[in-house]
């Protein structure tokens, strides 16, 4: 029955010792291994069963110190030191109510004042003085700032969710990259050895002149993804170097080849801009009825063009950050 919200998520094991026994009912862990010892705000302990027994009907005095308590004020101990436990609990509770952020304040000073105010209240709660009064103050604050607290809570949950997603995505990305890399490495090796072997074979077995063989043996490495182009290029250069050394001293008709090699990689559709990235689906429920008439399609205006136009518009600059001010003036 832990009230600590974060503790539950992180599954911190509850603190316990073999000697635990409930001062009320005298049951011992030795006899009941699953006994749960709970602690109250007055630092007195009792087992879960006794808590239910004594406080189910409503607020009642603690059997040890007499302080009026409620059932939900009892919690499972996480820290060895009970005072630490209590403080952690209280601070967590304060944080759910007092969750304003620096951006909610006009000046840094206002934010600092707020933080101090919260700390004062927390200290009072910890010391145990005026607890009822403090609780009232907290309740009042919660009422007055309900909307802001909720929205900040949503923001916080969203941020946590995003953080988790980021971690997951990065993990899987790293894994993917690693697999890709290993695959590429193996491919490269294979292609190199294959090309070398076949060339050597041809040189050894055929009766054509070495020069001819080399000329006709244009290395065609598999057209794989763009990312492989680099490794293909490297492999190709290696093979060309091999060819060059093989033809050295044969004939000086290398000029033609040199020109082709000289031009190197050439992409006719090269553009100085990054292409637009969208996901185009087959069918959409489209509010524009224009396509019912036949004359649009006859002039080449297809649904695809229409969707592409709209989707590109939606994705353009979607993640672009706004301009930032050149000088950040801290108002202190």
């Amino acid at each position, binding site marked *: 029955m832990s009230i600590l919200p974060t503790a539950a998520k992180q599954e911190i094991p509850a603190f316990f010792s073999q000697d635990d026994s409930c001062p009320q009912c005298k049951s011992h862990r030795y006899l009941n291994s699953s006994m749960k010892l709970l602690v109250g705000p007055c630092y007195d302990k009792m087992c879960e069963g006794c808590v239910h027994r004594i406080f189910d009907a409503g607020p009642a005095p603690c059997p040890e110190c007499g302080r009026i308590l409620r059932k939900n004020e009892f919690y499972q101990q996480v820290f060895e030191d009970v005072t630490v436990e209590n403080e952690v609990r209280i601070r967590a509770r304060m944080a759910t109510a007092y969750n304003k952020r620096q951006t909610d304040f006009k000046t840094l000073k206002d934010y600092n004042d707020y933080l101090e105010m919260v700390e004062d209240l927390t200290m009072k709660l910890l010391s145990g003085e005026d607890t009822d009064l403090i609780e009232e103050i907290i309740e009042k604050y919660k009422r007055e700032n309900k909307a802001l607290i909720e929205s900040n809570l949503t*923001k916080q949950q969203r941020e946590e969710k995003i953080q988790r997603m980021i971690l997951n995505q990065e993990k899987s990305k790293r894994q993917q990259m690693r697999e890709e890399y290993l695959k590429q490495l193996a491919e490269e090796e294979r292609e190199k050895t294959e090309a070398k072997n076949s060339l050597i074979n041809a040189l050894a077995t055929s009766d054509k002149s070495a020069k001819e063989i080399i000329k006709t043996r244009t290395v065609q490495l598999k057209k794989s993804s763009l990312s492989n182009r680099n490794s293909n290029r490297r492999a190709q250069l290696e093979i060309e170097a091999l060819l060059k050394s093989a033809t050295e001293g044969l004939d000086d008709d290398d000029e033609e080849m040199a020109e082709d090699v000289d031009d190197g990689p050439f992409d006719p559709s090269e553009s*100085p801009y*990054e292409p637009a990235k969208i*996901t185009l689906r087959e069918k959409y429920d489209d509010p524009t009825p224009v396509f019912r008439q036949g004359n649009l399609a006859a002039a080449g205006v297809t649904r695809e063009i229409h*969707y592409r136009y709209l989707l590109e*518009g939606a*994705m353009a600059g979607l993640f672009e*950050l*706004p301009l930032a001010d050149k000088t950040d003036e801290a108002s202190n």
Partner: protein
Amino acid sequence: MSSEKPPLFKQTSQYRDWRFTPESLAQQRAANNKKGIERVLQGLREEAQVDDDPSMSETRINEAKNNLLTPSEELELVDYYLQMVHVYALTYKRNGLLKPDAVNNVKATAINFIKRFYIHNVVFDYPPKSIMLTCFYLATKVENAFVKIDDFIRPLQSAEMKRGGKAQTKNEDILDLEFVVIQSLQFELAAHHPYRPAYGFYLDMQAYIEDKGLLKEVYEKTQSYIDQSLYTDLVFFYQPSQIALGAFKLAAKDKDLDIDPYLTQCFEARLLESLYTILDDIQDIVSNRNPTAVDKAREIDRKLILCRNPEKNPNSKLYKKKVADQGEVPYQSDSE
């Protein structure tokens, strides 16, 4: 190998030259206002020398000093005329001069032009009413919805006559300002609006949102939030696609639809982090928009009459003298 190639939207003039931070925008407007006021007083002093009645001039200068507009008053006045753009758009649509499918673009471009105009001008030199009409007219040309000037003027004149006056607005009132306007726009005429991205999002979301009927309602509601966003300075801070998404979120909230699943499933979390902050800001600004009421606009307009810069006022003695000095045909106008 990372791609160092820029995406296409970064080449648009809107991205290159019309982006500001809230602070830099405010500072620019404040600096213009200050300089504008200097010029008004300078102009009045110059006119005093041309005028025959010196005591009148003293009174005029004092009147002007007591009725100068602050930068925020300038903004409020312009805001009122931005709202008028919507009214005029509907009028022209009713008269068949503006096709329904062109209305959004013409309206949004006109509003955008007016706002941009006043980043490089002050209302003391150019009162918003005429500028608004000229920007509207220019927008019909830019957005391929051209209206001949005679047809354009007619509804304006008939409205004036209905109000019991005579037909005052003339072709020249609008055409003469075309150059001033286009100069202040730095000759950059392509404006991008949130309507197209919103439509795109509506299509893209269909694969992720179960309730298609509700999504359609949300999309329809988004249009009005986009209309609202046009009056704000959002277009100078963020991209049209972001504003569209912010408007979508507002509409979705109204109709109790959660579009978060779409965002988290489609986009990388790292990118979403900053996007959420941007969307919050957009929703904030659109919801908190404060349109200028007609009385406030009238009040400011009355002040403006007293502090208008005579150097740029075709009806002032100073203007007429300057034109005569340059040896050109003086501009004769009966209109206000």
